[in-house]
């Protein structure tokens, strides 16, 4: 579904991503792991178009989207839940969900989807009319993922969904990610928390210092290279 070839991202003189290539197949959950500053978020931002890569090719469903604007990539079925959640703090929970569906023209379906997420996360229902900035970190993450799903994406990019959350909440978030995979959604999950990310991953890429170090099934990580400990730790 998604193919990235020889992606290079630079900020001035600093090269954040060096010649990265990866693939995500339909229905797969692919984990992109690596330590802080490895270039994971830069990769995601290049995929959504918020950062313009120095070079490289990004194809979605066979279409080259390397030169397509962010807005149009979202319309093409790719979306991302950014690192740090980036909910609209000054808007209510309900308004956040409605903006997530901004590209859709079926009000009835939008309402059904909102109902669905409110049933799934009752706390969002309780706080529906409140400013989203008043939610806890875990609740904001639930809202951020729900908001991304409101556009009915084909491919969801999740950037550090566990960041800054209590372990119990992290498990809950990844349970939900597992459910999304079971429903057939294609996911690319960027994480530092390898243990959680590997629970549902079909394949794993490991990056550090902007370079791809390893790719393969989750089981290959620990035994073959000891990369698990090297880059990610317990």
């Amino acid at each position, binding site marked *: 579904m998604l193919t990235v070839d020889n992606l290079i991202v630079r900020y001035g003189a600093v090269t954040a991503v060096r010649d990265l290539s990866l693939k995500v197949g339909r229905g797969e959950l692919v984990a992109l792991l690596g330590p802080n500053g490895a270039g994971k978020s830069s990769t995601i931002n290049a995929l*959504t178009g*918020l950062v313009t890569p120095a070079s490289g090719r990004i194809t979605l469903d066979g279409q080259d989207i390397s030169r397509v*604007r*962010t*807005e149009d990539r*979202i*319309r093409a079925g790719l*979306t*991302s839940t*950014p690192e740090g959640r*980036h909910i*609209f*703090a*000054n*808007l209510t929970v309900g*308004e956040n969900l*409605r*903006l*997530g569906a*901004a*590209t859709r023209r079926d009000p009835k379906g939008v309402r059904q989807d909102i109902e669905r997420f409110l049933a799934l996360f009752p706390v969002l229902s309780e706080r529906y009319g409140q400013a989203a900035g008043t939610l806890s970190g875990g609740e904001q993450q639930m809202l951020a993922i729900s*908001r*991304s799903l409101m*556009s009915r994406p084909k491919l969801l990019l999740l950037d550090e969904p566990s960041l800054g959350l209590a372990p119990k909440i992290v498990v809950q978030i990844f349970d939900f990610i597992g459910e999304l995979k079971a429903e057939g959604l294609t996911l690319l999950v960027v994480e530092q928390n390898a243990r959680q990310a590997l629970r549902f991953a079909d394949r794993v890429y490991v990056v550090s210092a902007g370079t791809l170090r390893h790719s393969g099934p989750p089981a290959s990580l620990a035994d073959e290279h000891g990369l698990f400990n090297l880059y990610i730790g317990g």
Partner: protein
Amino acid sequence: MDYALQQLLNALAFGAEYSLVALGLAVVFSIMGLVNFAHGEIIGVSAYSVFLAAALGLTSPIVAVLLAIAAAALAAIAFERVAFRPVRYAPTTTGLLTAFGVSIVVQNLFMLLISPKPQSVSILNGLNQMWFFGPFAVSSLQVMELIVSGLTILALVLFLNRSTLGLAIRAASRDFATVRLMGIRANRVIATAFAISGALAGIAAVFIIARRGSVSPDLGFGLVLKAFVACVIGGFGSLAGAAAGGMLLGFIEVGLLVALPQEYGGFKDALTYVIIVALLVYRPEGLLGQRVELGDKEI
């Protein structure tokens, strides 16, 4: 009693006009970080459109009002498309200088193509009459200013809270990148903000023409300076703050005119700014602005 009521109405009418123009500045600033000093020339384009239409034989005041609003909205969109879009991602000062540039160019166009001298426009004079309520005589223009501004602000609030584009404008004021991640086109959000800003300027232009009965190249510039002050009082970027700041500025000005003896009337502006400075000493972020936490990072 009559005098007090008249002064109250003066303050409300001035305040309403400042609020309209300040809101126009704030809508654009909140999402783009651009202080559009060419906002006064949007008022100018609107006023000169009415002048030209009248010169070409337009007689209907209603058409003139609609024309003023439409011309201002289109001018605002055109300014964005031609001047501000190319510098959208440039540093803030570039945007500010661009705005001054647009302002100077457009003012000079008015002088070159029409005249540096004020031109009489009488088509909207009918709006400015005396209305009698029992013993009270009030200016119809001031009453209309108050009511129309109130309704306009109400419509703006509804738009910002109900429509998807309105929600997007509010969201973009904090986090434009994430708004784009919702698949909402940045150009559309910005063009809408400029169109709203222009429409508000157009409504203000109608009142200015009706009051002055003439147009001149620097018509809107002074008003935009006042609106800028109103935004600072209210907290830059806050829409509610802009409206409140405009109203407060109207009350301070009229209050000083009333309080000061006739021969000290010339000190009105100076004292107005003294009061504003005092206000900012106690609330540097403005009345409704958000305090920006600098921590120990920026010394």
